[in-house]
């Protein structure tokens, strides 16, 4: 059976998570070793899955226990391949980076890696799940792991941020569960493919729209969309840097954007032609997030808080692109998920290096780090260029596709806004470059040494991928992002593939 590898996406990180507390009693460094090996294995499995989907053209599927429809479904198509690759690339870099980064904290190493592996397990499980309730369970697994990780430093500020995040996150979870309960009460099924057929029979009733509204609110909180963004800046700000990279690069996109688009496009069958209201809503909230997030980022003086607000702005881009709803819009959204995960991952890791070496993240105190930390500086600069959409980096092509999509859909104002806020992005990111790395120092806060090798290595992997995705955008579009966008555009075709295949 070709779907044989699918349970491994959850089994490998869970095994790692349970082994870490056991073996680290013998030797504390086992925690680092297990986490790195597990995430490397996961990366290998995801690449293998992607190659299989790409070669065969057919999605992989797996029914737990061999029970079709009533059993738990796992599903691995081109969209899953893209998401799983993103999760595991950033996850691998975060685990490698954490090995030296955790020197800042006294003890608790094994707790950190256990939680990180649980976070990865939850995200992977969500990506491959083909069952509504399992999606919810995996969202909560990763969410609960992330609450604890945000509070990892146990300073007052961090615990407060984690508490705020937990309350808002659980409100989102409760709304999601409410929506799922409504669906289950009416449709009597939780399997996504079966559900989409049952829902198609109901028609576009008020019930349909009410369920969409509840689910949208839940996902909006998870992804930190503008009116629900209160938790995001604090949580990203307080978490350890590799966790900020995971949260911003992966978590908000997988539990928010991916889960929402999978449900809306493949199960509820929304399409630009039939349900324009839904798409206009995405554009409206996306544009507000893009504008407000960008402007708020501009005013920040803290390295990580600036990056956190920037994440809100980039989530806005992704939502706008999804809302455009044609091929280039959706391909642009998925490409931007990839580019943002790589770029923002690098930026957060760079912020962690700066903080570890200098002890502060306040941009007004940091000066002239370029002399002593060249690798961190250049990682930051290249990732900033990618985020701001300068060619030939990954971010340029995602924004290009979004603008092409907007023009093709005759939304010229949106194309203009997207281009304008690229410039704003460049503005606030070069502000960091200018203040932290280049201005001549007369400040006491500076570092004499580059960050440790493993941390630099993790950043360089992400930077190299950013450049590679940009230079080889043709291949990425044809083999990774394009097929994934078609999965979303084909909408209800999903059910036919799952149940027929």
């Amino acid at each position: 059976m070709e779907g044989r590898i699918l349970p491994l996406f959850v089994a490998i990180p869970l095994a790692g998570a349970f082994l870490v507390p056991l073996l680290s009693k013998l030797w504390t460094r086992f925690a680092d070793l297990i986490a790195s090996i597990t995430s490397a294995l996961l990366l290998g499995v995801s690449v293998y899955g992607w190659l299989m989907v790409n070669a065969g053209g057919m999605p992989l599927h797996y029914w737990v226990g061999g029970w079709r429809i009533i059993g738990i479904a796992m599903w691995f198509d081109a969209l899953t391949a893209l998401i799983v690759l993103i999760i595991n690339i950033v996850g691998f870099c975060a685990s490698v980076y954490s090995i030296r980064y955790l020197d800042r904290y006294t003890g608790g190493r094994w707790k950190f890696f256990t939680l990180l592996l649980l976070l990865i397990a939850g995200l992977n499980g969500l990506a491959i799940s083909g069952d509504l309730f399992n999606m919810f369970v995996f969202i909560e697994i990763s969410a609960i792991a992330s609450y604890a990780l945000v509070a990892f430093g146990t300073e007052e500020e961090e615990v407060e941020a984690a508490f705020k995040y937990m309350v808002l996150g659980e409100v989102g979870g409760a709304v999601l569960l409410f929506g799922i309960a409504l669906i289950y009460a009416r449709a009597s099924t939780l399997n996504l493919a079966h559900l989409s057929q049952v829902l198609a029979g109901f028609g576009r009733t008020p019930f349909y729209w009410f369920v969409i509204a509840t689910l949208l609110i839940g996902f909006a909180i998870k992804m930190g969309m503008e009116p629900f963004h209160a938790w995001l800046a604090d949580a990203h700000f307080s978490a350890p840097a590799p966790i900020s990279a995971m949260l911003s690069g992966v978590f908000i996109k997988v539990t928010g954007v991916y889960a929402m688009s999978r449900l809306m496009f493949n199960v509820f069958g929304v399409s630009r032609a039939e349900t324009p209201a839904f798409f206009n809503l995405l554009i409206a909230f996306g544009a507000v997030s893009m504008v407000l997030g960008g402007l708020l980022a501009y005013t920040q003086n803290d390295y990580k808080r600036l990056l956190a607000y920037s994440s809100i702005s980039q989530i806005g881009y992704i939502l706008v692109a999804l809302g455009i709803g044609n091929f280039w819009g959706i391909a642009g959204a998925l490409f931007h998920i990839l580019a943002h995960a790589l770029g923002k991952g690098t930026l957060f890791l760079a912020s962690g290096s700066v903080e570890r070496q200098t002890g502060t993240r306040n941009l007004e105190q940091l000066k002239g780090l370029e002399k002593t930390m060249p690798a961190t500086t250049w990682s930051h600069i290249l990732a900033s260029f990618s985020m701001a959409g300068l060619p030939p980096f990954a971010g340029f092509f995602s924004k290009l596709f979004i603008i092409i999509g907007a023009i093709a859909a005759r939304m010229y104002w949106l194309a203009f806004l997207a281009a304008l806020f690229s410039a704003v992005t460049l503005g606030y990111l070069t502000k960091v470059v200018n203040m932290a790395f280049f201005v001549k120092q007369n400040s006491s806060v500076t570092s004499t040494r580059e960050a440790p090798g493993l941390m630099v290595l993790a950043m360089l992997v992400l930077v190299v991928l950013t450049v590679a995705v940009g230079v080889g955008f043709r291949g990425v579009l044809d083999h990774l992002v394009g097929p994934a966008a078609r999965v979303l555009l084909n909408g209800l075709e999903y059910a036919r593939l799952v149940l027929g295949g």
Partner: protein
Amino acid sequence: MRGMSLIVQVMTGLLAGILLLYGGYIILHGHLTPGGGFAGGVLVAAALILVSLAFGAVEQVERREYILSSIFESSGGLLFLGLAVAGYLAADYFFRNAGLFYIGRPLELVSGGIIPLANIAIGLKVGAGLFAIFLALGASRFVMKE
């Protein structure tokens, strides 16, 4: 943590054993009667919590208890995952039961294939996990420091 009065200690001594036994019974009969790994695990944890509240312990002992319960918790999780992977390796399906393990006669203690084993794994994880949570809440001084 300080202990409680003699009356409480004597009563706890009488009760704790019965509670533990009952927890074990619920775990082992999970596939036959209502209950199972989770419910039984909670009972086991309750017995442990009762003892440590009534008799108290010095920090040294609590630290050892904490490490032990964390080991038991992880082994419970690993055992559960191991059962799943055993089925996966042997017959491609997670938690494969039928035809792989000795099933036994229905309604007897040894029956149900991997179900009783899975209940034991969950019982270990829940019992040790809840007790560890209790220790962490009550004795955050050393858990935080660790």
